[in-house]
């Protein structure tokens, strides 16, 4: 059961994100901190850097520190169950943000519908290609469920188009550098590539450079995901065809609000979804920062 | 009765270099068979084959008449052969006792489990070293021992193993007379017990004293073999070198200005003039090493040093070298970059001298290297060969060549003729004399007192870290006086 905080007693919440060097999570943490400050809460954040054991250790440290609630984006849906167990043992609510967990001790999951996003990207791409062409997929890190779900949604839809062929798949870290190299090689192996799917905007931005270098601008389209500012600009400049805006800042704020509601003792659904939006040349202007 | 071990037409090549050519060699139980020859004659190579380190290209090894193939040292050890290799091979981080028992640790058995018996380990170590009159703390790691002490440990390790065939490759190179005598008495006892012994040394007096038989190798071939009584030092030399030795006379030299002066506390001063050779004699652990290293700036000396009449603080070897001092350490591995070529090693200390416009002048370097290889008769005459492929004696010459290339005025030499054959030893003595005659000075630390007595103008005796006496040639100098002076 949730404890309602005594008035005047400053609440400290703990945060354990999957990475601390990824713009997506950096923005999310910003949102969390901003919302917490508005509520007069303190935030203690520990990092995991995609190391499951480190995430469990970090959550244990948060519990030892006596936080009142935990926001976590679990690296793996099963692998960090021990972190949820540790929180539950100390009767501390633990809310998953973005990535989710299969643990029975997960209090709430503030989620995105990953499969659906993958499907939406695929539908958009298929429409743009006119239902035929060769496609390369630059996936996320192997084993991470989010990127697996995205890719599964994508391939599920593409399977319905007999003239669309996925000719190249590679997994790896979400860096711009990898995007350049893999796109270059994919374009040598398949000079007629019509589209490159990427698991995230950083990879996408790299891939656009590979496309430019191979003189395929306009002939090979690149799709991204996350909607970070440089990607929006690339969409505006027509270097990238499309990205998905998730607004991680909002996500962080939502996570804090959900936790606040729970701590007040109000009822919250075990699964709360955040909206996503496809951004392409048609709507990018409204998203760009006004200058 | 068959020979303890014998070889039939053993040959061995290293690349295009023929180290051994159809060697027939044998030793009987209860016999000491000495093996002599110039540096690079192939002695160590033959030993390495007998101890399983190298495999011969052709020929057979027979142990007690039965053919044996050694895939590695363990096979040779299993056949009862124990070797003290020329290059000491100890494990520096392990204790003296563990090094002695290495490969054959005393254990207590508990069913299937074997545990080391530490008490027995220490006892064995102490007992075996006591035979050599060496009583260290056997728990001390070998890394803290001096080179000569390590040589005793290496001998101790070999003595520790029960063996029927015992091979010693230059075991006495860094040893004092006293330890050598102890070793000989051990060898004599082993011979009496029927052990077959192969003994390699460049000290032909030792050979004549201890050997029942002596075989001479030259250029990888057996050139002579004789029984006790039918060979003398001179015969051995002429068989080894193919020529008759001329005893190098020492021309009188004029003393020049003082090159080096050091005064520590109440000690005798160390002072070396141009044209002078000064010896430094002391027992094991008496501190000659520390004095040499202090003079070269490696250890901070606690005394005023002046070079060429001016006081100097030597903050490191670079300072010492800049003041015209060169140092060749007793342990060759410390003075040579083993995987670099002979040429690069010779030029190591004189890179700035052969540099023109920031670039090493290759031709000048090659010329200097070639000259020195000629002068010192370094063999094989291939400047591009890595130093590790040279025989021990030739490595020693490279060490000297390095400082001759640099044209230093003062040489600090530790054991300069360690492991060097008689011919080469005379050559090196002549080289040092020549160096000194041309206005250089030399300070020589050696465990070979006879060498010091023959060579030096004066010898400083070192006892327990202090220089206690100076013995001048004019007052008569021989190894007996020296021995008394250092307290042996």
């Amino acid at each position: 059961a949730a404890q309602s905080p005594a008035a005047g007693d400053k609440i400290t919440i703990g945060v354990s994100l999957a990475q601390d060097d990824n713009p997506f999570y950096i923005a999310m943490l910003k949102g969390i901190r901003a919302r917490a400050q508005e509520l007069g809460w303190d935030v203690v954040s520990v990092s995991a850097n995609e190391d499951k054991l480190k995430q469990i250790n970090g959550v244990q440290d948060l519990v030892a520190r006596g936080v009142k609630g935990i926001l976590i984006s679990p690296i793996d849906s099963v692998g960090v169950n021990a972190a949820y167990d540790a929180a539950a043992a100390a009767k501390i609510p633990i809310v998953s943000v973005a990535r989710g967990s299969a643990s029975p001790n997960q209090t709430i999951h503030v989620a995105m519908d990953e499969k659906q996003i993958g499907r939406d990207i695929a539908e958009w791409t298929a429409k743009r290609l006119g239902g035929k062409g060769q496609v390369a997929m630059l996936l996320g890190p192997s084993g991470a469920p989010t990127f697996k779900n995205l890719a599964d949604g994508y391939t599920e839809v593409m399977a319905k188009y007999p003239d669309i062929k996925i000719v190249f798949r590679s997994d790896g870290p979400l860096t711009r550098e990898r995007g350049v190299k893999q796109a270059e090689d994919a374009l040598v192996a398949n000079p007629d590539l019509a589209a490159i799917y990427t698991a995230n905007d950083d990879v996408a931005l790299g891939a656009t450079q590979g496309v430019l270098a191979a003189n395929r601008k306009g002939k090979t389209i690149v799709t991204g995901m996350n909607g970070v500012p440089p990607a929006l600009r690339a969409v505006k400049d027509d270097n990238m065809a499309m990205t998905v805006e998730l607004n991680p800042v909002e996500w962080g704020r939502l996570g804090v609000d959900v936790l606040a509601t729970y701590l007040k003792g109000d009822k919250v659904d075990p699964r709360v979804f955040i909206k996503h939006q496809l951004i392409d040349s048609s709507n990018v202007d409204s998203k760009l920062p006004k200058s | 009765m068959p020979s303890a071990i014998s070889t039939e037409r053993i040959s061995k090549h290293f690349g295009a270099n023929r180290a051994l050519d159809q060697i027939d060699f044998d030793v009987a139980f209860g016999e000491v068979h000495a093996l002599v020859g110039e540096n690079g004659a192939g002695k160590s190579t033959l030993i390495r084959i007998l101890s399983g380190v190298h495999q011969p290209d052709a020929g057979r090894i027979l142990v007690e008449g039965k053919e044996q193939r050694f895939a590695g040292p363990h096979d040779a050890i299993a056949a009862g052969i124990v070797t003290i290799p020329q290059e000491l091979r100890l494990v520096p981080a392990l204790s003296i006792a563990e090094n002695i028992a290495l490969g054959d640790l005393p254990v207590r058995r508990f069913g299937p489990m074997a545990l080391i018996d530490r008490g027995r380990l220490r006892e064995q170590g102490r007992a075996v070293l006591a035979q050599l009159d060496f009583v260290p703390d056997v728990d001390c790691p070998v890394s803290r021992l001096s080179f000569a002490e390590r040589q005793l440990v290496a001998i101790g390790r070999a003595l520790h193993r029960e063996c029927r065939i015992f091979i010693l490759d230059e075991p006495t190179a860094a040893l004092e007379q006293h330890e050598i005598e102890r070793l000989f008495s051990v060898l004599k006892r082993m011979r009496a017990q029927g052990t077959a012994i192969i003994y390699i040394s460049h000290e032909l007096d030792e050979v004549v004293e201890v050997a029942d038989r002596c075989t001479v190798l030259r250029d990888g071939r057996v050139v002579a073999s004789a029984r006790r009584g039918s060979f003398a030092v001179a015969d051995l030399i002429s068989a080894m070198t193919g020529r008759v030795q001329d005893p190098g006379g020492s021309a009188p030299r004029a003393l020049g200005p003082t090159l080096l002066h050091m005064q520590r506390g109440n000690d005798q001063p160390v002072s070396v003039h141009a044209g002078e050779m000064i010896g430094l004699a002391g027992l094991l652990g008496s501190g000659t090493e520390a004095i040499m290293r202090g003079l070269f700036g490696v250890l901070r000396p606690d005394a005023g040093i002046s070079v060429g009449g001016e006081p100097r603080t030597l903050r490191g070897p670079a300072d010492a070298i800049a003041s015209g001092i060169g140092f060749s350490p007793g342990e060759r591995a410390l003075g040579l970059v083993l995987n670099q070529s002979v040429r690069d090693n010779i030029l190591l200390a004189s890179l700035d001298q052969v540099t023109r416009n920031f670039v090493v002048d290759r031709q000048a370097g090659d010329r200097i290297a070639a000259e020195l290889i000629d002068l010192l008769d370094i063999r094989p005459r291939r400047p591009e060969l890595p130093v590790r492929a040279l025989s021990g004696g030739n490595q020693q010459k490279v060490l000297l060549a390095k400082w001759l290339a640099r044209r230093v005025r003062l040489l600090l030499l530790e054991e300069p003729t360690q492991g060097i054959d008689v011919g080469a030893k005379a050559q090196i003595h002549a080289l040092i004399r020549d160096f000194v005659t041309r206005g250089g000075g030399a300070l020589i630390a050696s465990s070979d007192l006879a060498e010091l007595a023959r060579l030096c103008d004066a010898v400083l005796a070192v006892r327990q870290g202090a220089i206690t006496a100076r013995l001048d040639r004019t007052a008569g100098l021989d190894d007996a006086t020296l021995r008394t002076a250092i307290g042996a």
Partner: protein
Amino acid sequence: MKHTSTLAAWRGRLAGQIPLISLIALCILTALLTPRFLSPLNLTNILVQSSIMAVIAIGMTFVIVGGGFDLSVGSTAALAGCVASMVMLQTGITAGVVAGIMAGGAVGLVNGLVIAFLDVNPFITTLGTMVLVRGVVFLITGGAPVSGEYGLPGAFVAFGSERFLGIHLLVWVPALLLAILSFVMYATPYGRRVYATGGGREAAYLSGIPVRRVIASTYVWCGALAGLAGVMLAARLQSGQPTAGEFYELTAIAAVVLGGASLHGGEGSLYKSVIGVFIMIVLGNALNLLNVDSYWQRVAVGIVIVAAAAAERLRSRS
């Protein structure tokens, strides 16, 4: 005379314990800054957090004392965890655990044979197997975590959280290993051969020690223990994780070196390597408790690693 030598001996003994002293200093400092550090919960956390890395570091110590190097332990742990989970779901817990450890030992054997008998550089060999084994893990798992329809067997998962005599089972494993294997390293001829081979391969070889077999054996130890660590990790992660164990190799080597082992071989002890693991884990724990920003944490970890190593060097200087 007597007096100074006792003093010197004491100084020497202290200098030999610099890793321990560093650890204690770190603990005292943290305890002063936050009282929560010494809470029973936190101390338990530290023990549990150290347990898996300690098992790996013990294996790594064998390799490093023997004069080698192993970068493949992280991948090997992942392989073992996944193999154990897969076998366990089919056949049972014991079979799974054994299969995991054996998979680790097999990787170690390959490393050992290539390094000892083909004389290939250990760095490059184990870098190769590190990449290769990770590929194999992804191939057999398809890149997805292994936990079956209904999770791994309950008794196995419980192993990741239950206690015996108040101490987590996960902590008993390295404790027992440390006791037994320290004995092996110190008191058996095999252990001394490992030291001799690492400290002077030539000398060991000339003494008839089968140096190649000894070297190969150290990699088998290391692989098998990395395998055991992988099984423990699977229990703790309640699944076989194909991506587990990244960067473990560097952490383990750092711990062993912090514990005073020489990367040239022949020096080091299991117990000190475990101290090295504690230094790394306590440091991370302290920075978390003190709510140090994760970027500053990296800076602090970097400085402490170098400082601890520098302190350890003072020993050989004094």
